[in-house]
């Protein structure tokens, strides 16, 4: 399925990262919350490969547990955006006319705001929190996925086999579900994959600002905010959470590019 070598590397890395997130309680070397006064700002060593933070806690274990939350929000928000955005795009693209306008006008409105600003505005209304951050990110990405699906629906709906189904008297909804959706969904899957990496970046930014995950919920963004206080004494507390995010975005992008070859040859997804 994934043709090129870089896509395969990305897939393996992603699989590894997801495994770490899922298995963190089992494979984390230390309790992420256990304070060790003798190891305050300790440099990386064999027992603590990522070093220790201001309270002597093991950074590697903390990164693993924070990663669980950040990755869950990243995947969850895009999945939600997918579930809402794809039907919207299908309907807008297939029916056209006033249905298209009714759906796509508010969608375009949302696209008119910078993503992070929209998320921040939503959190201003609903209050901070991991779940709200997930919802806010989903709201940002619904328009993007809806647009992508709409564009590919327009192409698919014009195909002769769709006309043939219509001539046979099949209902519109049946046509959409059976013929249009399977063929139009490819670019949306590619787009969603790439968006998951960026969703993680946004979640980190929100948590960094104190608008996302709230204590005691761990998050890579919160770790990045905390790490600033001890930046020169213990740079490892700041470096490793950031590297975790960057590798994740990279992996999602590589996998997305690989999927693009198969699912989106016309390059509908960005």
């Amino acid at each position, binding site marked *: 399925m994934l043709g090129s070598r870089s896509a395969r590397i990305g897939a393996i890395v992603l699989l590894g990262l997801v495994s770490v997130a899922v298995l963190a309680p089992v494979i984390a070397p230390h309790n992420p919350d256990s304070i060790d006064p003798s190891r305050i700002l300790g440099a990386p060593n064999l027992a603590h490969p990522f070093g220790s933070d201001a309270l002597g806690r093991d950074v590697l274990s903390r990164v693993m547990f924070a990663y669980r939350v950040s990755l869950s929000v990243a995947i969850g928000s895009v999945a939600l955006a997918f579930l809402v955005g794809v039907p919207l795009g299908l309907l807008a693209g297939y029916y056209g006319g006033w249905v298209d306008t009714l759906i796509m006008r508010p969608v375009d*409105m949302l696209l008119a705001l*910078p993503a*992070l*600003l929209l998320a921040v505005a939503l959190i201003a209304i609903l209050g901070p929190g991991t779940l709200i951050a997930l919802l806010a990110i989903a709201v940002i990405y619904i328009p993007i996925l809806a647009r992508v699906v709409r564009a590919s629906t327009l192409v698919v709906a014009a195909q002769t086999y769709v006309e043939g189904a219509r001539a046979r008297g099949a209902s519109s909804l049946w046509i959409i579900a059976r013929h249009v959706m399977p063929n139009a969904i490819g670019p949306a899957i590619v787009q969603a994959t790439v968006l998951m990496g960026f969703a993680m970046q946004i979640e980190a930014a929100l948590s960094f*600002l104190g*608008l996302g995950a709230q204590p005691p919920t761990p998050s890579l963004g919160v770790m*990045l905010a905390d790490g600033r206080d001890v930046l020169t004494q213990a740079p490892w507390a700041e470096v490793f959470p950031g590297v975790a995010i*960057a590798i994740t975005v990279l992996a999602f*992008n590589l996998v997305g590019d690989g999927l693009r070859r198969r699912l989106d040859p016309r390059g509908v997804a960005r």
Partner: protein
Amino acid sequence: MSPRARLIVRRLLLAIPVSVLMSVFVFLMIRLVPGDPVRTMLGFRATPQNVRVVRKALGLDRSLLAQYLSWAGGLLHGNLGEDFISHTPVSTLLSTRLPVTLELTSLSMTLAVLIGVPLGVLAAARPGPVRTATEGFVVAGIAIPDFWLGIMLVLVFAGLNQILPPSGYVPLLQDPVQNLRYMILPVLTLATGEAAYIVRTTRGAMEETLGTPYVQFLRAKGLSERRIVFVHALRNAAPPILTVVGIQFGVLLGGAIVIESLFALPGVGRLIVTAIQQRNYVVVQGGVLLIAILFILVNLVTDLLVGVVDPRIEEGQPS
């Protein structure tokens, strides 16, 4: 009217309903807060008396439509309400903060373009090690969270070696040199991320143009490679580059919110974040509206520029 002028007028007219709808969304923000926004704003000062007074001041006791009309009317007069904590008009707060955000975003975008376009052109025209290095830059620039990059830069330039200040701000008109010293790290942070996207788009557009029969024809005509690349190919690549600059400016405005907080720059972004933490909805409203309008304006300008620069739109021909 020439097709180009028609395009410009159409684009200008489109910006109006978008702005109006934006104002409605921002207006609804404070009304969508679950529970009583006034009680949340006042916190422990929420005596029945205070609640009544603030509610009347915010106009929350009137019908939704009346509220919107009076708010919109106030907007057009430059009245965005008042910060309930310091009693400063929001418009004053914003006007002192806006230059900071503008300086940050315009310097960042300019630097990003100055780095990104030449790199993209180079990568397209000269395959080999240059191309691979640029690929790496693009990949890293997109994947690395910009505020993390900012912190790393602070570590290197302010933490370990005290070359530059880690945070703070001096107004440009007060002391240009100091102002730039404080702005170098924030601008570098934002510009690097943006440059990655610009390099990617420039390289893609240039490669596409350089592969067309048109360019082959120019080569056959005997034009120098330099002239082909910089005059003809770049002109054809300009529309997608400008478009991505417009889109990325929105991302930049969002990123500025985080970077301003990181480097303690007194801009609109940081104002919004602080106001959210204080539940200061009126200020949040004003700040969000301002940034949204800014984004709409920038997109308008880039769309117009694309319309002007795009060689496919010929004067005098039907569009």
